[in-house]
């Protein structure tokens, strides 16, 4: 069997291949340890087989200020099982080979800082992690982890918001690796009914500046949302709704969300 070198380049290759086949990118988010550490790999395998292009894994944190109630609750459940960042990375290291999709770790900065930035990047690389999302690490503080993540070949995915100035959008888009995460609402994560109307113009601007795919996220919860977002973006990230569907064992809804991406 061919050995894959994980990291920024693997994620880019997978995304490029997807887009070249005229398909869109779908990234589901799960909370590591929600349902116990033993459920982590089966859940990843399920999403991988269902057609996820990449998978985002949230690390439970005591104070997730960028997250809405669904992800907060999932994090709380996960913490109550006693799951730690160490266990999550160990588990991935053991069974990473069973999943084809690139894996992105989403964590607040403090758990990385306490783990030790260098050590975290080293362990993350050997666990086969491809990229990182750190919602409380804005561009200004990227130097905090830059050297370590570059040494270990991990992609640092930047978030850009509707409130970002044009100048910042340019800086963030140029700095982002793997993909550019476009936050589609002013707010925290979680399911929503509506989005602002001038998203198309916003995404045009993002695409102009970005060398990497532009993915929409926050508040995307229905196949209709997925369909309308993939009209303007290269793909979507779906979090809270995936967590709810997994909890309800509603695999049909997960399939419906994923299938909606190429259903133009």
């Amino acid at each position, binding site marked *: 069997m061919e050995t894959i070198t994980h990291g920024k380049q693997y994620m880019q290759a997978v995304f490029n291949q997807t887009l070249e086949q005229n398909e869109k990118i779908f990234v589901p988010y799960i909370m590591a340890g929600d349902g116990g550490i033993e459920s982590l790999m089966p859940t990843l395998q399920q999403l991988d087989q269902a057609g996820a292009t990449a998978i985002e894994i949230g690390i439970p*944190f005591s104070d997730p200020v960028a997250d809405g109630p669904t992800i907060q609750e999932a994090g709380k459940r996960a913490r109550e099982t006693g799951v730690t960042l160490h266990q999550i990375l160990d588990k991935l290291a053991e069974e990473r080979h069973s999943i084809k999709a690139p894996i992105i770790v989403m964590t607040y900065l*403090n758990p990385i800082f306490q783990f030790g930035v260098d050590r975290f990047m080293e362990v993350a690389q050997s666990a086969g992690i491809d990229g990182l999302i750190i919602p409380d690490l*804005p561009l200004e503080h990227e130097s905090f982890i830059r050297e370590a993540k570059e040494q270990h070949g991990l992609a640092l995915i930047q978030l850009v918001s509707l409130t970002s100035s044009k100048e910042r959008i340019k800086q963030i888009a140029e700095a982002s690796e793997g993909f550019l995460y476009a936050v589609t609402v002013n*707010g*925290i994560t979680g399911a929503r009914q509506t989005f602002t109307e001038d998203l198309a113009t916003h995404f045009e601007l993002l695409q102009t500046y970005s060398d990497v795919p532009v993915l929409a996220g926050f508040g995307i919860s229905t196949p209709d949302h997925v369909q309308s977002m993939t009209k303007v973006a290269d793909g979507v990230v779906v979090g809270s709704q995936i967590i709810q569907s997994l909890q309800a064992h509603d695999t049909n809804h997960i399939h419906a969300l994923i299938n909606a991406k190429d259903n133009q």
Partner: protein
Amino acid sequence: MEQSQGSNGMYGPYGGRFIPETLMGAVQELEESYEEAIQDEAFQERLQQLLKQYVGRENPLYYAANLTEEIGGAKIYLKREDLNHTGAHKINNTIGQALLTERMGKRKVVAETGAGQHGVATATVCALLNLDCVIFMGAEDMKRQKLNVFRMELLGAKVEAVEQGSATLKDAVNEALRYWVSNVDDTHYIMGSVLGPHPFPKMVRDFQSVIGRETKQQHLDVEGQLPDAVVACVGGGSNAMGMFYPFIDDHVALYGIEAAGEGVETDHHAATLTKGSPGILHGAMMYLLQDDAGQIQEASSISAGLDYPGVGPEHSYLKDTDRVQYLAVTDDDALEAFQLLSRTEGIIPALESSHAVAEAVKIAKTMSPDESLVICLSGRGDKDVEAVQEHLQG
């Protein structure tokens, strides 16, 4: 030069802006607006006028002759922040930030509160300036501080109960931040202490520095020289930072007093600088109470105003550079000081301030009668009498 710390938002390795991108625009706007405002004579005039006529500044630097005699050491002075409108130093900051809210063309305010003192001070200035006001407060704290909840509502604020986490101050900050992210276009967040992303720690310190500036001048007027020591309690650290900052470059010993709760050797304390370690929370790098995995722990103190697992980035820096000595006082010692000041001077201090009183009398005892020590009496204790009664009878 110590005074230059904070101009770029960093205090040594502490501070910064560790926030979601959605808030970055608002925080940058706030910084620009603040830097402009402090250069603007009209803004300063309005602020000074309100501090004088509405808050009741300047408040006295009171020589506590009875306490001094009882302790038998340095002369003890009290900076009477308890005499401000709303009964604590908190309003020095909320007045300033409410004027900034107006200046930025925003009509809505969000804030967090623990015991309710900052919430009341925020609701008060929002009533004055006719701003919409939402206050997030832990559900547990709401139960413990029913009267302050009613005060805020009376002042026209909407008080939102926070059920997440331990349902106390830390969780109220999380929820206020989430609300701000979702309403950032028309809402300003009035942070209650020297915490959060830049420019909050600097701005709150600057608004609170009126405490130290007045103290300095008042002490010079009476004693002809600066005090030998200054003591203030530290939760997030706003009264202490406001008191210390004008003295930073002087030969004055500075003491910050944290809450040791049931004792720093137990799991029930709020002694962040004494027992914590550096980390990132609520937008800044600072000392935190946390476990090995970087999960934030709950703080615990009899005084709800000190009950926070972090401490301002500038305090974190002043600890590392040894410019300020940080010590911790237990619930029991604070309760004793609460009674001591009530009995000797007829002044009932807030439980927060009682921590400063408790350590200050120990320090004063080791000093000579020709030296002097200033305690920042950050708030009055009326809000605490019921809780203290329960403790003493329980």
